[in-house]
């Protein structure tokens, strides 16, 4: 009787998730003796589902991890989906009035509804010499339509997904990278679970993480096959195979999935510390009672690399 | 053969091929109290609907003082089954309704109605809502609203059908007394054989649908008539009942 692992997604299936589907399709999970059930994206964030034990694992955003951990949520990152930031600030290419982040003052931002977006944008604009004052309309999943329709001025996107799609659709876009404006580079998102789960099922966790890692590595090696797997595994999503392939290529070419050093899934302590201290300094880390943290926590407890296999 | 008052000649009316009034001829002379009695569903209310202009006859003539009734002339004051007081209007506003609809200013209408409240036993209830009145008082208010319009004929449809038997008897006697004083021209529809016998100068008995005038019964008794116990009234009642229960009619 194989152990069952439930895995919650953070968005509709996309190339960030490709290793999961490849591991499933290529039988890596079977080989590891586990059965993985991938839960579709829903309005309840994967981190919440994981922290409340509704799902065993989930895709957790980087800054979300820090905020929730600080607030006492039982969350641990066990796998870095990407080695470097895939997110970026994006706006339509014809906006001559936007040349650098300080031009965003007074503009309208389509947000996803989280406290950290303010920190990110405020930091970038102020780093560039602006005031960091802009309008926010919280749109969640409608943000991109709103941007394309010109209803808002800018938003955040995942370059390797929305960005590639815009390129393929011939939509002129320009973007600012966070790291160019005072925000430390980070693993944009992780596969995470809870301390409680790791304590109770260390072997299952290891089996799942290492098989997943194998899946991502395989996807990098066999992009054509991997793209086909993602499309076939998600018939409901009606994915365009060529687009998926292009997105995967962008992930490979940018060394997002496999770093130039050859790491897949590895969590870089230096990046974690830099980002952790950055968000701590910005004052958005709050304890369980909603009070800002006084001292910087030990960020090394926020993640664990013990479950990765020493692949290389 | 024309004359003063209201006259119907060979009036017919069908609804979707279903004949309701077959052949109705009747007269109501000025100052007369005339009743129509008939089985349920015979078409009694339909006759009044023809007279108020809500319906138009399929055939026959309707004359008032010898002149054919034009549609939209609204010559008669109508008192519908039950009292049909508007629950959201105070009694004073209910009673002036006909005058106001006819275009009179509210103030003038109130001035016209106010003196009649005492006579109708409604003194002090001007500012009450209908729900605050007893069944008998409501009927008097409805009748006040009808007569104050000053129309040539009062068309009254089963005014006391919803009252309990005792109150009904009281109201019939009150109406008889009022009528003797004012000598309104009245066409009364009723189910109640005794009511017809007590109040009318003449009773038209309708057949079942399609309705014809089965019998015309003149009542030659002097007014007022006793509420119960007069053998003459009883004879009239028996005559009406015999017509109604006669299977051949």
């Amino acid at each position, binding site marked *: 009787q194989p152990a069952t692992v439930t895995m919650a997604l953070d968005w509709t299936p996309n190339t960030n998730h490709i290793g999961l589907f490849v591991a499933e399709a290529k039988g890596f999970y079977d080989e590891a003796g586990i059965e993985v059930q991938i839960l*579709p*994206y829903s*309005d*309840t964030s994967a981190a919440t*589902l994981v922290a409340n034990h*509704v799902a065993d694992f989930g895709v957790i955003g980087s800054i979300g991890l820090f905020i929730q951990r600080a607030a006492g949520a039982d969350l641990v990152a066990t796998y870095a989906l990407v080695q470097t930031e895939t997110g970026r600030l994006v706006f339509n290419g014809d906006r001559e009035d936007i040349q650098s982040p300080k031009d965003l003052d007074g503009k309208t931002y389509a947000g996803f509804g989280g406290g950290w977006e303010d920190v990110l944008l405020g930091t970038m604009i102020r780093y560039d010499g602006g005031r960091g004052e802009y309008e926010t309309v919280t749109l969640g999943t409608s943000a991109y339509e709103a941007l394309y329709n010109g209803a808002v001025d800018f938003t955040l996107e995942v370059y390797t997904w929305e960005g590639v799609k815009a390129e393929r659709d011939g939509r002129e876009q320009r973007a600012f990278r966070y790291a160019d404006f005072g925000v430390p580079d980070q693993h944009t998102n992780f596969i995470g679970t809870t301390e409680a789960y790791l304590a109770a099922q260390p072997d299952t966790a290891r089996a799942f993480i290492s098989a997943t890692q194998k899946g991502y590595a395989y996807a990098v090696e066999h992009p054509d096959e991997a793209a086909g797997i993602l499309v076939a595994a998600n*018939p409901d999503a009606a*994915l365009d195979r060529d687009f998926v392939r292009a997105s995967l290529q962008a992930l490979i070419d940018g060394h997002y999935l496999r770093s130039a050093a050859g790491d897949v899934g590895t969590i870089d302590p230096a990046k974690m510390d830099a980002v952790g201290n950055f968000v701590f300094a910005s004052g958005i880390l709050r304890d369980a009672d909603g009070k800002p943290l006084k001292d910087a926590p030990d960020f090394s407890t926020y993640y664990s690399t013990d479950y990765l296999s020493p692949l290389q | 053969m024309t004359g003063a008052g209201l006259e119907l000649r060979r009036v017919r009316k069908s609804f979707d091929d279903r004949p309701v009034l077959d052949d109705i001829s009747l007269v109501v002379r000025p100052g007369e109290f005339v009743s129509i009695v008939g089985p349920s569903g015979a078409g009694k209310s339909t006759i009044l609907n023809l007279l108020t202009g809500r319906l138009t006859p399929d055939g026959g003539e309707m004359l008032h003082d010898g002149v054919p009734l034009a549609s939209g002339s609204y010559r008669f004051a109508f008192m519908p089954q039950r009292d049909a007081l508007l629950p959201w209007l105070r009694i004073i506003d209910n009673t002036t309704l006909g005058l106001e609809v006819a275009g009179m200013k509210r103030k003038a209408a109130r001035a016209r109605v106010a003196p009649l409240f005492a006579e109708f036993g409604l003194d002090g209830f001007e500012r009450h809502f209908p729900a605050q009145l007893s069944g008998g008082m409501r009927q008097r208010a409805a009748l006040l609203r009808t007569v104050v319009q000053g129309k040539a004929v009062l068309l009254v449809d089963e005014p006391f059908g919803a009252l309990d038997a005792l109150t009904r008897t009281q109201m019939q006697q009150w109406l008889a007394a009022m009528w003797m004083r004012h000598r309104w021209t009245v066409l009364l529809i009723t189910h109640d054989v005794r009511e017809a016998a007590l109040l009318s100068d003449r009773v038209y008995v309708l057949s079942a649908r399609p309705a014809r005038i089965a019998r015309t019964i003149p009542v030659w008794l002097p007014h007022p008539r006793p509420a119960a116990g007069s053998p003459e009234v009883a004879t009239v009642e028996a005559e009406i009942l015999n017509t109604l229960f006669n299977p051949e009619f």
Partner: protein
Amino acid sequence: MWKAYAFLSALARALGHAGPALLSVVTLIVGWEAYVHFSGISPTVLPAPSRVLAQAYEHRQTLAGHGVATLQATAFGFASSLLAAFLFSLLVDFFPQLRRALFPVFIITQTLPLIAIAPLIVLWFGFGLMPKIVLVALITFFPMLVALVQGYAATDRDIEALLASMGASRWRIFVTARLPSSLPYFFAGLRISITYAVVGAIFSEYAGAARGLGIYILNAKNNFRPDLVLAAVLVSSTLTLALFGATVLIQRAAMPWTRLSEESR
């Protein structure tokens, strides 16, 4: 012969009834189609109905699968809700004091904004059928309870007095008089609640589910496929209307005396 005539005239009447409705629905759809074609609006903003229909047909199997999941959630949720409403209506009928204690609590549940509550319910009850049942019940339970209690209260006092004079027990009076009296109210409530039940099930899926039209809609939306969103909406609306129609049929079957009284007088 008479039967055939009666059938034909009933059909003609039904068409006569449906005519204006069909006309306006068709006008709406044609107008929408024309607007999309002549305004040149992007199909990612407003897809044409023809496209929605074509996509619905193309993805009919997937849609059917998700539709069945939603239907299942609706059915289980609504059945539980009905059962609970009936049990509580019994309780409140036999112990009227309970009514004052319970109803305000139920009223408060009706004021809760679902979008806030749905994710919490998913957290408390997991990803399975349970949160769907709870949400559908949360939406439909109180209206059904109110319908039943109103229905009981509408019982003719004379009929109750009559049964009491015959020596009928409280329970016998309930079964013989109060329960049948409540049927028209029950069905009126049912017709409205069944509409909310479908919407509620989709809602709960949206907050967290493995399958269902809610999940499908969310995915389609994120893939910038409003045509598929609308195809799923089409399925869900059809489902709702079908359930609505079913309640009307059930009512006719369950209350023969109301039907007959119209026909044969």
